[in-house]
């Protein structure tokens, strides 16, 4: 009788372990939620067409000591003529609370497609550049930035 009781307790313990593990799984998946959010964001921008990975000049520091002020500069080779120009450029960061950083809209009048700004990075992560030309084709490039002290005031 005594042995049977012990077995029952063990079964209860086992249940607790199973539930606990399941709970841990749910929690760990929520940590990666921002990654899903990032993929969703890219799909939304590109209308599920996806972007072609190409070499674009994206200048971000390899190591950013201060995540509050990270310089980002890019230059896209484009004739910027009426039939062939870069319309929009998105800067995205996959580890920030919100993936969007900035959206630039260009016009042919500019003659050159380039811009510089400063952004916040909460932690070490990839910075993405997503460019759209006038034929609604998307191009993408990414660069890893190591952040020593995070920005965003998390």
């Amino acid at each position: 009788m005594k042995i049977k009781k012990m077995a029952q307790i063990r079964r209860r313990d086992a249940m607790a372990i199973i539930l606990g593990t399941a709970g841990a799984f749910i929690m760990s998946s929520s940590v990666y939620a921002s990654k899903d959010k990032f993929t969703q964001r890219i799909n939304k921008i590109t209308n599920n067409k996806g972007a072609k990975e190409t070499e674009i000049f994206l200048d971000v520091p390899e190591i950013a000591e201060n995540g509050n002020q990270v310089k980002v500069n890019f230059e896209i080779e484009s004739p910027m003529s009426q039939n062939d120009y870069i319309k929009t450029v998105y800067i995205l960061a996959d580890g920030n609370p919100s993936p969007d950083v900035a959206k630039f809209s260009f016009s042919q009048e500019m003659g050159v497609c380039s811009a510089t700004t400063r952004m916040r990075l909460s932690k070490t992560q990839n910075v993405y550049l997503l460019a759209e030309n006038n034929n609604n084709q998307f191009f993408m490039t990414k660069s890893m930035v190591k952040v020593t002290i995070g920005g965003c005031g998390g």
Partner: protein
Amino acid sequence: MSSVKPRGKVPKKASIDEVIEIKTLIRHPMHSGRMKDKDGKIIPRQIINAFKVEFEGKEIFSMKLEPSISTNPYIAFPYKAKKSGTFNFEWTDDNGKKYTMKRKMKVS
């Protein structure tokens, strides 16, 4: 917010087809809505969310800013000079308040 002050640098003179660089900076705290003050209270979001540049009344460049943009947003971009004219810069904050600046350029 009286401390918000736009600044910009545009060359006064340029030659035709010269690619000039336009640099702008606006003094603004860019509260992302995540930072906390001394008492641990969250400072509500208040950022500059849009920037627009017009040359002789025609929009040439615009930008949508998110909370991930740093304090005192700095924006620089090139422009191929073709004729003399005036640049109109316009920043918009979360309350819809606009900050403007004008710069003239002579092309010869």
